[in-house]
């Protein structure tokens, strides 16, 4: 402990004992903050205090000095917590650096490309609320078929990131003959169930457009329903299918349904970050989002997706409360 600290402390304490002024307390507190930066423990502060008081008022009774010695003893464990805090802060800084690298790796790893299939216009956007995206979109192209998985990993952070790599493996490994949405979800479910903790679930919507038959078939693992926009009637119908979240049960079955698409129709697949967009007044209504979609129904799939994102982000003051993902399959 440098002597100069003790001398300065004594000066401040002396002034305070003479004047009781707020200014001295302010100066004292600023001084105590520097103590913390220098990792001076609270027991040291009591000791500095005792020495200062002893110099200023040596006439005080023994009880004063003894009671301060007792107080030093009481502070030793507090001193330990202070040093522990320093070490925890350093650890947290290391983890933050790791997360930055991990985010970069993940982005490269999970890159996916929109499919090019005759008669189908695909557009999508996926924006994380925080650093790492817990939503995931993966496209798969096979001859005249174009598939997409839209997933929301419950739980965030590191396991979510690894989980997505797993989904990607699962999808890339799907055998051609099993590419129907229901089968695909069953297979991915088995992989997820096997490798993931019970506390971690994934919701997934799996859609496939067949450009020969002009049919969109789909299955859902506890995911947000998609919407089908009918360009004739300018109305939306919900596309939902029965199925448990991925990872709950090893032998889950996934209902498969389909709908035929006319020119100008589009399918909107999304995560709950879209439907549960939140403003200070509460949730944004489904009707509001559908109205946004109708406003730009004649634009390209990409423009539709971006318009919805920008509008909803603006309403929320650009502070997303959840990861936001929207995928548009538009028949043209």
């Amino acid at each position, binding site marked *: 402990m440098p002597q100069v600290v003790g001398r300065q402390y004594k000066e401040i304490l002396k002034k305070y004992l003479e004047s009781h002024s*707020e*200014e001295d*307390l*302010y100066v004292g*507190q600023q001084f105590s*903050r520097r103590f913390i*930066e220098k990792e001076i423990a609270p027991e040291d502060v009591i000791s500095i205090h005792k020495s200062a008081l002893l110099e200023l008022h040596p006439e005080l009774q023994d009880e004063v000095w003894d009671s301060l010695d007792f107080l030093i003893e009481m502070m030793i464990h507090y001193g330990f917590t202070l040093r522990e805090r320093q070490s*925890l*802060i350093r650890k*947290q*800084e290391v983890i933050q650096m790791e997360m930055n690298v991990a985010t970069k790796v993940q982005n490269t790893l999970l890159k996916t490309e929109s499919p090019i299939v005759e008669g189908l216009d695909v557009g999508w956007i996926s924006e994380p609320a925080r650093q790492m995206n817990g939503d995931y979109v993966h496209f798969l192209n096979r001859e005249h078929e174009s598939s997409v998985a839209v997933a929301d990993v419950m739980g965030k952070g590191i396991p979510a990131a690894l989980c997505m790599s797993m989904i990607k493996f699962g999808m890339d490994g799907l055998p051609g003959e099993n590419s129907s949405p229901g089968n695909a979800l069953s297979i991915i479910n088995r992989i997820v169930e096997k490798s993931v903790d019970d506390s971690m679930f994934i919701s997934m919507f799996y859609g496939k457009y067949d450009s020969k038959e002009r049919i969109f078939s789909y299955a859902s693992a506890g995911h947000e329903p998609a919407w089908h926009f009918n360009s004739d009637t300018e109305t939306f119908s919900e596309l939902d299918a029965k199925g448990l979240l991925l990872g709950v049960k090893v032998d889950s079955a996934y209902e498969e349904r389909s709908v035929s698409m006319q020119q100008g129709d589009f399918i909107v697949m999304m995560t709950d970050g879209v439907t549960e967009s939140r403003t200070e007044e509460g949730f944004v209504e489904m009707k509001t989002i559908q109205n946004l979609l109708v406003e730009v129904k004649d634009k390209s799939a990409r423009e539709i997706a971006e318009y919805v994102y920008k509008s909803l982000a603006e309403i929320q003051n650009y502070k997303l409360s959840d990861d936001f993902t929207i995928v548009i399959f538009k028949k043209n």
Partner: protein
Amino acid sequence: MNRSSVEIITEWDIVAARQLGRNEAKKVGFGTVDQARITTAISELARNIYLYAGKGKIEIERVTDGEVCGIKVLASDDGPGIPDLRKVMEDGYSTSGGLGAGMPGVKRLMDEFKVISELGSGTTVTATKWLH
């Protein structure tokens, strides 16, 4: 009078804001330690204004909620605003950077805490402590 305020322009105004806060806290009936906590919170907010916004205002209001009395501190400035609020509120960051206990500190010293900040147009912090 239920509400009083101090303009923060020089470092001495920080001391004035502290004094005002301590007096009010004493009148409401807070004990020595809570008086010190409320005063420290005001001090931090005023110092942030002095250091990062140039000038602003600390307002202190005695409040009641049913039978419970309390003290409410309002710190406002037209400064540059806080670019990344989430980061500023995170533990370990603001303190290690030498910015002082800063916002997370104030939040912990008081019972309720709210900060609104817009880039280029300033920051408003509201913090309340109730007499338990």
